[in-house]
């Protein structure tokens, strides 16, 4: 019985969870739609306001406090480059953004599918080793991009 319950893989079932943020009378697609609109708005700002110009955006707080790069340093410039079609430029600023983007887009698509009642995989069905591996990769990336000789990973 219990084995069969798991065979159905609740992680991929089209179950909806109350978001706890939006009021219940809103349709289920309201939350993913709101996030999409917000992301598109942020992308529009980032497309038009160049983060390569000092003073346009705040410096990374971690970099300002410690003088070290964090895994997110260069994200704005990398995204700006991507929005302008400059993949090589984005890779030079922060390769993690390029790697994360397909997953983030997939997560958005599956969110929409679930909100429409369709089954879609979610991150809870990932093998734990995948997420632990992601953690290890980000930690290594964090350290290495601060080391001399790894300028190609640094956002500068």
């Amino acid at each position: 019985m219990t084995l069969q319950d798991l065979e159905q893989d609740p992680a991929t079932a089209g179950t909806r969870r109350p978001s706890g943020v939006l009021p219940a009378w809103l349709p289920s697609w309201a939350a993913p739609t709101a996030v999409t609109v917000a992301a598109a708005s942020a992308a529009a700002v980032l497309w038009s306001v160049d983060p390569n110009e000092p003073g346009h955006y705040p410096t990374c707080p971690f970099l300002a406090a410690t003088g070290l790069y964090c895994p997110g340093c260069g994200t704005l410039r990398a995204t700006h480059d991507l929005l302008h079609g400059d993949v090589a430029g984005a890779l030079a600023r922060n390769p993690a953004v390029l790697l994360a983007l397909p997953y983030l887009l997939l997560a958005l698509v599956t969110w929409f599918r679930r909100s429409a009642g369709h089954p879609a995989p979610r991150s809870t069905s990932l093998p734990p080793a995948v997420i632990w591996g992601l953690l290890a990769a980000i930690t290594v990336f964090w350290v290495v991009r601060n080391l001399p000789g790894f300028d190609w990973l640094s956002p500068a």
Partner: protein
Amino acid sequence: MSQTPPSYGGDDSNNQGGAYGAPPSGPQYGYGGGGPQGTPPPNHLVWAILSTLFCCLPLGIVSIVFAAQVNSKWTSGDAAGAQESSRKARTFALWSTIIGAVFVVLYIILFAAGVMSMDTTVNQY
């Protein structure tokens, strides 16, 4: 905020048929009904990744740790522990987002107040 490591003792059962690592062992459902039935708690992985990359704070990485714990504990049968890790993953992602947002708002206010200007921040980073 101390975090006890997930229990992988014999009381946990892996009901995934060994698909996720350790083969099933020990009696089933030592957690007294708290075994992995139904929907696993959210691990907030997307939020954790977003806050790691866009909030510029190491807090996001802590959130990824707890996201991984959610999946680990759930597949090892520890539903209660998975819930707890889920809550912590959410808390850290939330604080990372809040602090990042406060930082941006402060920055904008300082700009508007003329405390900082574009020219003086050149070559500061």
